[in-house]
């Protein structure tokens, strides 16, 4: 089984199988190939566009001598060891902690009242754009931030203490920020996987055998759940290592993590620095690959040790400590982001607000009045792009899943890797190359080019979101409907889509949120002419005006929360008289 073989499997539905009955090339059958092209084409083209300059080839800057000089330049940069260390330590630590928090919370509290509260708190946070969450968090924990202000009557601070919290050299605040943002993602992924792991019954058996909740969970439920969420965990690892916007806000700058440095070099007035940037982008890709390999090796070690641990039969003496810890960590990560967002909201209405006041001296609508015209016009573009990207991604994903269903060819593990590829390759490694490609095709800065660029990142999440509920649908429904005379198309439109309305709308909301949150793809492909709430927010962020950031952060959050509320409300209204379709 080589990758080619998997590619064929993924593409196999191109030729409608025996069971499709027609033998013709069907429209549904073409979709997987289209989808694959939409996702992987830009990544591959972009990587090529990065590879060339890293070898010294950048004709526009008058550079066309092939050499390894860009790499030599890169390795001569004195900050490189620290920047690389930061990238790796942030990535591994953030992933380990996120996974730990999610596992402890699930193990200790799944199926309990507190868990349902936590789940409700965390789910909407998934959609909060990274930049907005990071700003909120920065304002919360800075020495002059909200917590310090609130504590000032006790501490007696009239000036903020001169302590290094934000931008600390070890990237711990950055790591904490990534954890707070990735916990909701992993939790939802794990919840989806739980359905297939038969958690309730396994836990009943484990507890009947005298195992504590957490130990029982780790020994019986965690292994199959982890197998299911392995790829999302890798995504968290790759993303935490290569994130740019969050690292610029929370991360250290002397030196910055490698990804931030790539962007800096990319924007250096000295054009030859582009070459160093390209070399660093490739190094970044290599680092991610190394970290993934390390993680993979770690998995094997943990699995080996886990088997020994399970065989020892210990029932879990630490459970009484771990259980409250899990809930506390889960609640903390949710509350930190929520409180940060609340801080942004307060800033957006703030008049003069000096340290150490816990609240502004006055509230006014000046900031909102000032930015409203901009928000309305960029908001319109944002929604237009997001709606188009969401619609296209739904068509492609449903087409792929339906084609998979009809042909009976399930996606292999390796095929799944292909879907995740755009999320595993660092954005900085292929987006600049992609921009050059689109330019030479004359296809940049049109809205549709931006939509297609968004699609690269929206599609994997749409797949993740809809794949499981789609496959979990009882295929006997299809047999019954076909036996009653319904064609495959009839089954899809009259039975399957209505029954899956709720997960489809949730997927749409996820896709929408992912599109709204895109910064680099919008900026690079849109040539700056396509402004969205996110590009505006990040541009304003460079100015550090907290009121403006507050207004845009709140707008951005509202823009993604709207669809989520609709995704909950629409099925509740449409299926108000259909009890078994209530979540």
């Amino acid at each position: 089984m080589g990758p080619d073989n998997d590619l064929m499997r993924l593409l196999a539905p191109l030729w409608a199988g025996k069971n499709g009955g027609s033998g013709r090339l069907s429209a549904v059958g073409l979709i997987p190939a289209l989808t694959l092209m939409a996702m992987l084409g830009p990544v591959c083209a972009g990587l090529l566009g990065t590879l060339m300059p890293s070898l010294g080839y950048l004709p526009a800057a008058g550079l066309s001598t092939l050499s390894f000089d860009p790499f030599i330049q890169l390795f001569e940069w004195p900050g490189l060891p620290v920047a690389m260390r930061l990238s790796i330590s942030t990535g591994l630590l953030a992933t380990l902690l996120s996974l730990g928090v999610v596992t402890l919370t699930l193990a200790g509290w799944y199926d309990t009242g507190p868990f349902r509260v936590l789940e409700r708190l965390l789910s909407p946070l998934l959609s909060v754009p990274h930049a907005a969450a990071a700003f909120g968090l920065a304002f919360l924990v800075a020495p002059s931030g909200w917590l310090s202000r609130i504590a000032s009557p006790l501490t007696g601070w009239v000036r903020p203490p001169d302590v290094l919290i934000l931008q600390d050299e070890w990237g711990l605040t950055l790591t904490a920020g990534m954890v707070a943002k990735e916990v909701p993602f992993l939790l939802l992924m794990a919840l989806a996987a739980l359905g297939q792991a038969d958690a309730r019954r396994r836990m009943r058996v484990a507890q009947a055998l005298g195992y504590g909740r957490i130990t029982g969970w780790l020994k019986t439920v965690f292994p199959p759940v982890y197998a299911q969420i392995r790829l999302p965990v890798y995504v968290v690892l790759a993303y935490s290592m290569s994130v740019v916007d969050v690292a610029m806000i929370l991360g250290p700058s002397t030196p910055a993590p490698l990804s931030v440095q790539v962007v800096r070099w990319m924007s250096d007035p000295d054009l030859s620095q582009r070459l160093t940037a390209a070399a660093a982008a490739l190094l970044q890709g290599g680092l991610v690959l190394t970290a993934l390999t390390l993680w993979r090796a770690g998995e094997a070690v943990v699995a080996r040790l886990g088997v020994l641990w399970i065989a020892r039969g210990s029932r879990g003496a630490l459970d009484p400590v771990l259980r409250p810890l899990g809930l506390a960590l889960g609640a903390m990560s949710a509350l930190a982001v929520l409180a940060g967002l609340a801080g942004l909201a307060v800033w957006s209405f703030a008049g003069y607000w000096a340290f150490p006041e816990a609240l502004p001296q006055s509230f006014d609508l000046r900031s909102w009045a000032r930015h409203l015209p901009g928000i309305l016009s960029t908001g319109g573009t944002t929604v237009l792009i997001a709606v188009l990207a969401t619609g296209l991604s739904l068509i492609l994903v449903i087409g792929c899943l339906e084609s998979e269903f009809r042909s009976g060819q399930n996606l292999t593990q390796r095929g799944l890797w292909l879907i995740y590829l755009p999320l595993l390759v660092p954005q900085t490694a292929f987006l600049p190359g992609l921009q050059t490609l689109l330019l030479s095709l004359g296809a940049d800065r049109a809205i549709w080019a931006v939509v297609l660029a968004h699609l690269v990142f929206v599609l994997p999440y749409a797949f993740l979101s809809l794949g499981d509920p789609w496959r979990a649908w009882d295929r006997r429904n299809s047999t019954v409907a076909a036996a009653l005379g319904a064609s495959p198309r009839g089954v899809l439109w009259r039975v399957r889509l209505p029954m899956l309305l709720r997960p489809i709308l949730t997927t749409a909301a996820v896709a929408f949120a992912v599109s709204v949150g895109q910064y680099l793809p919008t900026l690079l492909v849109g040539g700056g002419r396509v402004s969205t709430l996110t590009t505006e927010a990040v541009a304003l962020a460079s100015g550090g005006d907290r009121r403006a950031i507050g207004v845009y952060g709140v707008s951005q959050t509202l823009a993604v929360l709207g669809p989520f509320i609709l995704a909950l409300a629409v099925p509740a209204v449409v299926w108000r008289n259909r009890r078994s379709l209530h979540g």
Partner: protein
Amino acid sequence: MADSLILHNVRISRRGAPLVSIDHTIAPGTVLTVMGPSGVGKSTLLSYVAGTLSPDFEASGKVCLGATDITDLPPAKRRIGILFQDDLLFPHLSVGANLAFGLRPGGTRAHRRQRIESALSDIELEGYADRDPATLSGGQKARVALMRMLLSEPRALLLDEAFSGLDVSLRRQIRALVFDRARRMHLPVLMVTHDQEDAEAAGGAVERLTVANLSA
């Protein structure tokens, strides 16, 4: 009108390993019961007949309804009704709409509605057309599922452990109803079950599949 369901030298294997081998003609109004432990391929046989066999399996032989070879027809064209252990009423449709889904196309709207009303009264569920299927009892759901299938005017009937989900008294009642209707409509029935009582109630031939069934 009534035809036999003919399984002509049907052999199903999974990745080369033989699974099911059967050669049988089911006369109209009679039942062939296929029994055997779980995992032996009973349901695989039914999906082969229904036309929904997964590509993981290879099959040879023919399925005919009387003189018509339906082996290569898509499921929707075979006109073979199927009942599962669960009622599988479509949860997004009302009881009446579920029946209308089954009812063969044609006729005026008023005529169709009237047919559904009379079908409902036939199974003692008058006035249930607008109900959410989720609010019905187990026996009521089973009757709606049966009626939905019959309204599609099938030419043969497959029962996949169709009565296993029901409690003992209900089970007898529904089973009697299904067999009674099938006989009245002269439908050949292929039933898969692991319950001896089902087989006895069916009163027809019994085929027993065993693990690694290699017999001809």
